[in-house]
């Protein structure tokens, strides 16, 4: 910088002047691009949020009350932290966001236990996994010195399978025909009854099982309390504190068995919600006090919470009318209705979550496997190397194929080909899984490629095999990149609409799918439906509420990606 107008040191040229104009133009056009992009997104979000929450419909009294009790104290406190106590500001930021994120997470957990796995199913699953763990642990202690690698492997894989799946029976009833001409060859019809029932199945078939709430207390709260206890023991290095932490979690959840009816929620809801809320918040508050920095920041959520409570009391007693919300509790818990005010998104939300579970189970292992092979094992020289290069280019191109094409592919492959019914969860999940597979592969490849080669060479130099190198050196270093890329791809997956249209996800589904083979709705599909209904209330109010819900779910997922990335980066 100094050289530009420093005439004394003319090392760059004879005339001693350099034009800064081009640089300035470039800089400001970059700034312009940034501002334009941000403004466009921000204006859109503001527009949608305004439609969903309609703040203008609230009475002045309501707005003033909320401003005085919630907004003003929050702004004052935030300004204080910003100017006086930055560390406390960070604490305030996290301690305010954490309860909100935990509440959303608790909602997700409740949906899982209400719609996807029954509490008893979960209880049996956890019990079976626990039993398998104990068996393997005992086996390792007794036999590890003498058993062959194959035997150890068989036990480690076989015991969990026996515990969770058993050896299921199977039935085939299909006419085998030649692939192209379609001539019938023979009819295959075999059915084998269940050979060995799984431990999970046995537990489920017990005549007496604990109540839903108790089952979850044992199989959901206890393991999470254990995790909290382990964490506390690691940082505080006393068993007593760990026990206190675990005890507090279990007590908070267990209180629900007695207290829930008085509050007006089911005991199961209490157990799940309190567990998901208490564990992360408790751990965070503990860490703040242990570090002893910025404790004042914890006051922020308390002030905002108290303010909100105060606002509620004032509004109720003085009878101010609040804003005419589209996105309210009713919207989140009801299904679509022809009356805009009664319409909700719940079945579509559940459907989207279940589709995403299928996407994750399908796309992540396949995509990661392909990426590892292509980066670490695939030949890179000679004819085979050229072939691999061609495949890689094609995968990158596949990532850019329009999503509606994947819809047609899914229809041809899973509905017309395999013969699954259109419009069910698994077809939706597999189709969208195909759609994001190239993105997962490419992002995982990038992450693996970013691991410095010197690390691999060092590992080989110490005598490690290729497998050991990949497992112990490459994958841990690549994990944050892989997670970030994958979760961002899932974020795209949850918003995809066109493939869902092609594979026959119906416009309106009023019941959440009760299995992965059940008919399902999906949030983007439902939003698309609302955009085409006659009543304007649907196209502005209800649609906006749906968009905000979808955005919040995506925000949660992207937030998870950031948290995971930060966690792993810190470990490096």
């Amino acid at each position, binding site marked *: 910088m100094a050289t530009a107008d420093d005439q004394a040191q003319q090392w760059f040229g004879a005339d001693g002047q350099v034009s800064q104009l081009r640089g300035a133009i470039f800089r400001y056009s970059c700034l312009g691009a940034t501002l334009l992009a941000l403004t466009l997104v921000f204006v859109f979000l503001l527009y949608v949020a305004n439609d969903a929450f309609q703040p203008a419909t609230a009475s002045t009294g309501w707005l003033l009350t909320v401003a005085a009790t919630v907004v003003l104290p929050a702004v004052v406190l935030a300004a204080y932290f910003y100017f006086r106590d930055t560390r406390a500001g960070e604490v305030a930021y996290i301690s305010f966001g954490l309860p909100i994120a935990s509440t959303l997470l608790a909602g997700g957990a409740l949906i899982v236990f209400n719609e996807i796995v029954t509490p008893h199913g979960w209880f049996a699953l956890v019990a079976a996994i626990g039993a398998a763990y104990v068996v393997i642990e005992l086996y390792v202690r007794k036999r590890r010195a003498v058993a062959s690698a194959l035997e150890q492997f068989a036990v480690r894989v076989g015991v969990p399978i026996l515990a*969770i*799946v058993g050896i299921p029976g199977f039935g085939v009833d299909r006419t085998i025909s030649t692939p192209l001409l379609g001539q019938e060859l023979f009819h295959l019809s075999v059915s084998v009854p269940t050979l060995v029932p799984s431990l999970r199945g046995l537990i489920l078939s017990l005549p007496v099982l604990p109540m839903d709430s108790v089952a979850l207390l044992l199989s959901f709260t206890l393991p999470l309390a254990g995790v909290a206890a382990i964490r506390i023991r690691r940082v505080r290095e006393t068993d007593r504190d760990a026990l206190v932490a675990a005890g507090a979690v279990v007590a908070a959840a267990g209180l629900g068995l007695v207290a829930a009816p008085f509050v007006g929620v089911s005991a199961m809801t209490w157990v799940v919600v309190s567990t998901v809320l208490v564990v992360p918040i408790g751990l965070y508050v503990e860490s703040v006090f242990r570090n002893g920095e910025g404790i004042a920041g914890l006051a922020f959520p308390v002030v905002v919470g108290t303010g909100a409570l105060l606002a509620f009391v004032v509004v109720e007693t003085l009878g101010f009318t609040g804003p005419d919300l589209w996105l309210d509790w009713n919207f989140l818990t009801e299904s679509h209705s022809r009356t805009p005010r009664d319409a909700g998104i719940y079945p579509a939300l559940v459907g989207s979550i279940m589709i995403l579970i299928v996407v994750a189970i399908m796309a992540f292992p396949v995509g990661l496997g392909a990426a590892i092979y292509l980066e670490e094992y695939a030949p890179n020289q000679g004819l085979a190397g050229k072939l691999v290069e061609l495949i890689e280019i094609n995968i990158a191109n596949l990532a850019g194929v329009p999503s509606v094409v994947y819809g047609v592919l899914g229809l041809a492959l899973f509905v017309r080909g395999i013969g699954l019914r259109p419009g069910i969860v698994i077809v939706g999940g597999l189709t969208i899984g195909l759609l994001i597979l190239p993105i997962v592969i490419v992002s995982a490849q990038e992450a693996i490629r970013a691991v410095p080669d010197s690390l691999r060479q060092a590992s080989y130099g110490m005598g490690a095999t290729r497998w050991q190198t990949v497992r112990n050196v490459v994958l841990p270093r690549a994990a944050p990149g892989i997670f970030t890329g994958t979760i961002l791809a899932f974020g795209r997956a949850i918003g995809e609409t066109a493939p869902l249209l092609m594979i026959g996800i119906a416009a309106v589904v009023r019941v959440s799918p009760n299995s992965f083979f059940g008919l399902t709705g999906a949030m983007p599909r439902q939003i698309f439906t609302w955009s085409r209904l006659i009543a304007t209330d649907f*196209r502005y109010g209800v649609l906006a509420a749906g968009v905000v819900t979808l955005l919040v779910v995506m925000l949660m997922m992207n937030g998870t990606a950031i948290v995971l990335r930060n966690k792993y980066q810190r470990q490096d």
Partner: protein
Amino acid sequence: MTDNQSGRLVDTVSRRKFLASSGAMGAVAVAGCSETDSDDTGNGGSEDLSGEVRITGSSTVFPVSDAMAERFMDEYPHVNVTTDSTGSGGGFENHFCPGDSDINGASRPVKDEELSQCDENGVTPIEMQVAGDALTMAVSPENDWVDCMSYDEMAQIWGENGAEMWSDVNSDWPDEPFDLYGPDTTSGTYDWFSENVNGGGHTDQHEGTEDDNIILEALQQNPYAMGYFGFAYYAENEDRVKAVEVKENEGDDCVAPSLDAASEGDYPMARPLFIYPSEEALEREEVRTFVEFYIENTSADWIGSDVGYVPANDDLVQENLDKI
């Protein structure tokens, strides 16, 4: 050194175990959930009735079917009735005839080639007229030169190789090009209009869309735009567009679109709406119950007030019930 190494080994073992068990858990979570059977086809009792009914087809019939589904599911909460709007033709070809959906809505009678496609797949559609619609020809609210049109004039605009300028049809009209919006070619409305008003063909110079809101918005933006859609969309947006009165022949009276005029037979562009349950699906208890419920309610008043269509009369209801 040895201590260190064994510690490392234990570490790997536990992580591998974790990976194996969590992987298995994920796989089993799917398997475990899929065991809860969804395909209970129900047996008898009105409250216990469960199962799935899939409706596809015309976007014009969609509001009726969706209202029926909502009312039906209030009574039978365990029957999952899903409604989709795919266009009459799209529904027959892609969903109903391949046997994927149980009922197809249509705003025109089923075509012969569709019947043969259904037949190949062992699907037998049963025709039931469930409601009537007054197809509405609409222009921009700024359009002050057209109040009434005959079939002949509409055919000149909307028929094959239709007129390009307003003045081509009537010299009193402005010398401006048409901006035409209508339903997609997969739509039954398109087929009905081609068949009954144009006498066969249909211009390909129009913007075809399954979304009637697009037509409405276009009509508001361009004073020379023109489009047609079901009466329900007009009823909801009466102040935003101008409906053209219609006469079949030059000598007839002009009639404005309305449900009354359509049900009394005065409005020429009144058309029947159908649903086609398949005979095979009707063997399932939940589909039969739903179709009975549907037919019995087609004469209800709310079809007119809530959905914006002409309800069926009692004779038609009885005739349909006899078909089941």
